[in-house]
């Protein structure tokens, strides 16, 4: 009843109760807190609400990921007409049907866009970036990952027109060459994050230029850029002291010199991912652990040369280590895990540990790890010396731990874990 009164106009009065009680400004204010779906529903209530709900000021942040299959060019054009200069954040992630012409209209209408996500819009080409460069100079964050048609011409245009760019994601744009990266380096000195997974043509020269021109770089992801060598990393380390995240997985040419350089210069490093950099040795990690005290995340998958000593250095030098992956580090033994579990990070910080395919690990490692109170997740796939009993023992110490092993996870509830002796009822009374 109440709802009817609020929304339905009474007798001959034109306005519904809610519209008489609330000013347009107040309604607009309320609408500004709603998400896209609610706004569209409100727009269907009445003509006056339609105008208010579709007012550009409500549409500053739009994420269309959940509607990706339905979004086509005209939708984007309509949104851009509706929102105009209000729109600051737009995500069209996965909207595969969007085309260049839609984004040209968009760029012309929404000059104030700051954060644009076009990930996986596969049909977009260089002409989109040209329009963005021409009209959207305030762009600070752009994601064109998996837009496979993108070439250097895009990056050239962005370098010219978007000097405020801070975050750029060009992952899987396999046509990008060093020239494009150099254009970005020269045009966008404020760059803080550069993500270029599998841009395999990028070389040392490009990264060196990037490092020199963009000293604010904090996040660099060069996963699977396989031409990269130590030279690029050394120049990154020398120029970008604020580096917090660096991913160099699958850059197989890198050697210890990279680790040494990072250790000397990038003291703020939080995350280091170097999976399958198989030339890294204990000496490199010794140098790294000496200064990088803030390291939280380390992925050392398939660093096949490292031994227990590397773990000893890391557990001494990195008291904040939360996540550590040692998958396929085949030389690691129980001794290394003992170092790790007796270190400062182990008791209070370490949350996740990957030990899959470390063939030398035995149950005694698990006994050491029982001291890691915060450990939530441990991966033990294919560690064939690990037994069910060892896992059960560990679980009785750390009941919340998720153990990932090839054992069917039907361990008994931890409350009555093995290890504690059980008495029959009559004995406990005596």
């Amino acid at each position, binding site marked *: 009843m109440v709802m009817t009164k609020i929304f339905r106009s009474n007798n001959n009065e034109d306005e519904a109760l809610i519209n008489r009680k609330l000013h347009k400004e107040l309604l607009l204010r309320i609408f500004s807190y709603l998400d896209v779906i609610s706004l569209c529903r409100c727009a269907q209530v009445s003509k006056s609400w339609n105008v208010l709900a579709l007012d550009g000021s409500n549409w500053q942040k739009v994420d269309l990921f959940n509607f*990706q*299959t339905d979004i086509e060019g005209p939708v984007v054009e309509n949104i851009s007409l509706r929102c105009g200069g209000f729109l600051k954040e737009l995500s069209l992630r*996965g909207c595969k049907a969007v085309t260049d012409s839609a984004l040209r209209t968009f760029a012309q209408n929404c000059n104030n866009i700051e954060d644009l996500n076009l990930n996986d819009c596969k049909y977009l080409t260089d002409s989109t970036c040209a329009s963005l460069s021409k009209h959207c100079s305030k762009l600070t964050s752009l994601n064109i990952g998996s837009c496979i048609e993108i070439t250097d011409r895009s990056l050239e245009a962005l370098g010219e027109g978007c000097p405020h760019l801070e975050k750029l994601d060009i992952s899987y744009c396999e046509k990008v060459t060093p020239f494009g990266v150099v254009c970005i380096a020269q045009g966008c000195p404020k760059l803080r994050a550069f993500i270029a997974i599998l841009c395999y043509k990028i070389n040392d020269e490009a990264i060196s230029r990037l490092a020199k021109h963009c000293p604010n770089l904090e996040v660099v992801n060069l996963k699977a850029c396989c031409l990269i060598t130590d030279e690029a990393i050394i120049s990154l380390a020398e120029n970008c002291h604020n580096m917090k995240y660096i991913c160099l997985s699958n850059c197989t040419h890198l050697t210890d010199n990279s680790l040494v350089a990072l250790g000397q210069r990038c003291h703020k490093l939080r995350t280091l991912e170097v999976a399958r950099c198989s030339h890294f040795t204990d000496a490199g990690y010794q140098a790294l652990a000496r200064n990088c005290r803030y390291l939280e995340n380390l992925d050392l998958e398939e660093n096949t040369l490292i031994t227990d000593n590397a773990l000893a250095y890391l557990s001494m030098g990195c008291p904040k280590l939360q996540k550590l992956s040692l998958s396929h580090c085949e030389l690691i033994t129980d001794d290394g895990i003992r170092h790790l579990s007796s270190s400062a990070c182990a008791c209070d910080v370490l949350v996740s540990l990957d030990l899959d395919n470390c063939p030398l690990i035995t149950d005694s490692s698990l006994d050491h790890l029982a001291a890691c109170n915060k450990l939530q997740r441990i991966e*033990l*796939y*294919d*560690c*064939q*010396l*690990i*037994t*069910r009993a060892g896992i059960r023992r560990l679980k009785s110490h750390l009941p*919340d731990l*998720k*153990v*990932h*092993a*090839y*054992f*069917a*996870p*039907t*361990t008994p509830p931890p409350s009555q874990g093995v290890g504690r002796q059980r008495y029959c009822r009559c004995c406990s009374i005596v």
Partner: protein
Amino acid sequence: MDTSDEDTSLAKRILRDLRIIFDRETNLLEFDIVPVEDKTLNKSPVIFEDHRLGLESWSIKYLYTYCYHEFLKTRSHRARSDSATINELTRTLLLINPELKTAWNCRKQLVIDKYLTIQDELTFCQLLMRRRSKNMENFTHRQWLIQMMVKTQGHPDTNFINNELELCLEAARRYQSNYYAWTYRRWVVQTYAYNLNACLHEMATSKAWIERHISDYSGFGYRQYIIVTIGSLYLDTQDKLLAYEDYESILVNEMDLINDLLRIHCNRESLYLHRRFVVSQLLSIDGSKDKELYDREKDFIIQYLQIGRDKLLIERLIRWYQRFLNWNFT
């Protein structure tokens, strides 16, 4: 929640192990579930040896549950999952349970989308057929694939057809009374090898087969189809009288074959059923031979009654003759 999290992780891991093998190995010969219920080693349940893939049975529960739920999720909002995931999930589901029609249909879509090539999919079907030979879904899928292939690449060559025929034979060998395999073979012959030479060749193949699988009536059923086909092919190509003559000689040979087989094997109902077929075919060509046939059958029956062979089956045969041909042997 606690265990289901670990279940999921385990299932994902096993999926990954399977994916690695499928990516690397294009020529998988066999897949099966290996009965291992008691786990003692922390080792992957995926076993791969000499182009053969095995999966330890304890892991099925986790893997199948996970895949099935993920698969249903992808069905409910289809566009959000990519082809690679659907391929992987359906592949695993079908390896474990090839009767899942939805999964087969999803794979058809992947073929239409050109994510999977028809050739690869045919190989996959064959892999599954080696594990579950009597599976209608698999044959239907194969039929659909071949029709797709013909649409795009034209008529298949004899080599391909022979492969298909050999595949049916293998399936029939692996699972007795495999009606689906014979139906499929019938479809192949009817659609792509509908000529006298092929049919005569089929007669020879089928003869060898029924001699070794005497009680498998599905094989006889197929042979009867071939015999009828030959009859109508004779009619299409030759003068009517000549055609009947040729067809009759085929049927008479068939009768000799049956008599030979009856002498070797006791109590095989399939042979008697086949006999009925041949007799009725002979009558259908030439009704005037009724008397002659009656005499011959009477001799046969009397002979068998005298030596007391296949008593029950002979009685049934007599009853059948009485009811359908009005032949009385009193």
